[in-house]
């Protein structure tokens, strides 16, 4: 048995990996490089292939085609127990008949290591479960079980640590707390973490790099801010946060700016932010980047792009902000988040408003893409795009 190597400088590489189940293509010609020591998130909706990718790295599925490398070692067809990879399973998969200590010691014992007690104690200390060693998993709370699962994997110092929706079973408050905790532990031990999740907020909180997956391939990869501010596809624009996507056509250039025609109005955006070469575009603005002004109101300090003639159709107060739906003259409803600064009062449904935003906050995508891709959060109805 190849002794799982200590960490240090071993990147995880997937080269043209495909996984088919019958006729269903779960992962489609996927290539990825995950640098050693990074906190990497695979983000996507249910069925996008992220879990299958993770299971192939763990050795629980065999790829139909392609190669998986850890450092220079080809592990594509290696058994799970012959890879320097450990997994924090969804719902933890703690061995119910073994106590916490033995759960954590399991991997060390299989590899016949020395000083098992010291290593296990250290790992339990790291996850702040020092006094729990002799309890059974069923005697712990969900959050504690989660920590045991983490300690059980980390104690082996794998080259790659896989986390399969690790926080999915925790309630919201505990999840927030564990996100910070996980990030701290990752920084402390310096292992490569590959984190699979469908929760975009969780991915953005923890990961250095996020790969957004859809239909078995990576839609876009990058840092959280990069993905959020400059999505390259409608799927990413809609799946990560919310976007207003509006039909636009290129009508000219002015310096470094692109001039666009949007339903009869001229708006501008930096030419460098254009993600597609086509003239038929979908321009996007995040709801919190838009400011509302009632006709005649001062718009001083507002962005120079403006779309007039909107009517508020719905306003919901959420505390931090107020979320407005604004019907535009061409029939499309746009979303606007107004931060609760206490100064302006609530706009009532029926109020006439103009929309303003900074040209730099505009992004532009290929107009032939499906404007509703990635919207499919439960019960969402497709938004008509004017």
């Amino acid at each position, binding site marked *: *048995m190849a002794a*799982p190597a200590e960490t240090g400088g071993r990147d995880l590489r997937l080269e043209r990996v495909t996984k088919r189940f019958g006729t269903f293509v779960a992962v489609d010609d996927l290539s990825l490089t995950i640098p050693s020591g990074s906190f990497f998130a695979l983000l996507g909706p249910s069925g996008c292939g992220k879990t299958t990718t993770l299971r192939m790295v*763990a*050795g*629980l599925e065999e790829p139909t085609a392609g190669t998986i490398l850890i450092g220079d070692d080809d592990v594509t067809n290696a*058994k*799970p*127990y012959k890879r320097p*990879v*450990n*997994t924090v*399973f*969804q*719902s933890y*998969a*703690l*061995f*119910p*008949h073994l106590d916490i200590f033995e759960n954590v010691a*399991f*991997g060390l014992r*299989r*590899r016949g290591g020395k000083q098992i007690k010291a290593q296990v104690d250290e790992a339990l200390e790291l996850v702040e479960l020092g006094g729990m060693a002799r309890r*059974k998993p*069923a*005697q712990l709370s969900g959050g504690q079980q989660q920590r045991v699962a983490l300690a*059980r*994997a980390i104690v*082996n110092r794998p080259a790659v640590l896989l986390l399969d929706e690790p926080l999915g079973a925790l309630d919201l408050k505990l999840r927030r707390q564990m996100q910070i905790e996980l990030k701290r532990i990752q920084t402390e031990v310096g292992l490569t973490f590959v984190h699979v999740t469908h929760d975009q907020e969780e991915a953005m909180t923890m990961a250095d790099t996020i790969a957004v997956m859809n239909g078995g391939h990576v839609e876009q990869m990058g840092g959280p801010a990069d993905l959020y501010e400059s999505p390259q596809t409608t799927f990413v624009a809609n799946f990560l946060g919310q976007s207003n996507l509006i039909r636009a056509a290129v009508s000219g250039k002015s310096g470094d700016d692109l001039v666009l025609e949007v339903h009869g109005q001229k708006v501008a955006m930096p030419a460098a932010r254009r993600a597609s070469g086509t003239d038929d575009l979908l321009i996007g603005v995040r709801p919190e980047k838009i400011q509302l002004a009632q006709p005649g109101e001062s718009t001083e300090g507002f962005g120079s792009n403006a779309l007039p003639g909107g009517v508020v159709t719905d306003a919901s107060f959420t505390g931090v902000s107020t979320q407005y739906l604004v019907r535009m003259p061409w029939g499309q409803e746009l979303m606007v988040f107004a931060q609760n600064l206490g100064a302006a009062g609530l706009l009532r449904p029926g109020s006439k408003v103009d929309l303003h935003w900074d040209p730099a906050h505009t992004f532009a995508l290929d107009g032939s893409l499906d404007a509703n891709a990635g919207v499919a959060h439960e019960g969402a109805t497709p938004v008509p795009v004017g």
Partner: protein
Amino acid sequence: MSKMRRWLGRNAIRIYAVIAFAYLFVPVAYTLAFSFNDSGKSNIAWRGFTLDKWKNPCGAPDVCPALGNSLKIGVLATLIATVLGTMIAFALARHRFRGRTATNLTIFLPMATPEVVLGASLLALFLNLKINLGFNTIVIAHVMFCISFVVVTVKARIAGLDPRLEQAAMDLYADEFQTFRRITLPLVAPGIAAGALLAFSLSFDDFIITNFNSGSVNTFPKFIWVSSLRGIPAQANVIASAMFFLALIAVLVGQAVTAGRKKQKA
């Protein structure tokens, strides 16, 4: 009056349960009581209380050898049926293979066949092959009808096992064999134990199939059957009562242990 009726209405099902329990226990009470009967050759009428039979349970001829045979057959048949049945259960629960439907049918049919048919058909085979009836043929017969029950019990337990536990073990450097020994087997063990207990009780109490295939070998149920014509000695009641209490204590202790563990968890 209406109060009374409402009370009856609310407690009807409990009253019914008490009556049902009485029905369940009257014959048991008879069996227990008559183990203390100061009986002569037959043990039908009550003749007074005595502890003599309890002091000397082997006092009646043939009782204890028959019991010994039943225990030996029970243990042997249980061992074989549990091993074979557990193997089949793993194949059915964990593998895909051709002939699955035929296998399931072969497991199901012995349970759906009346004992008298099982016994008679096996006897027909033994007669055709000119095999001498005795201890071995009883064990063969008992293993045959116990396998299915073991398969069903163990299969249910395996099906209830989270496959992620085994995946986690392999992820933690345990190879197939270590995974089986350290994770799968300990977690399936309660199911195997339940299957074995079921097999033993079926074997120990079997009369019909045994009667067809036992030749001259005596077992405890066969002893009761044969002596029921002439009169069953009270020693048989003593042995049956002792088995009853042993089994009852074993189950109650088992329950207390599990309950204790659960409480610890909570």
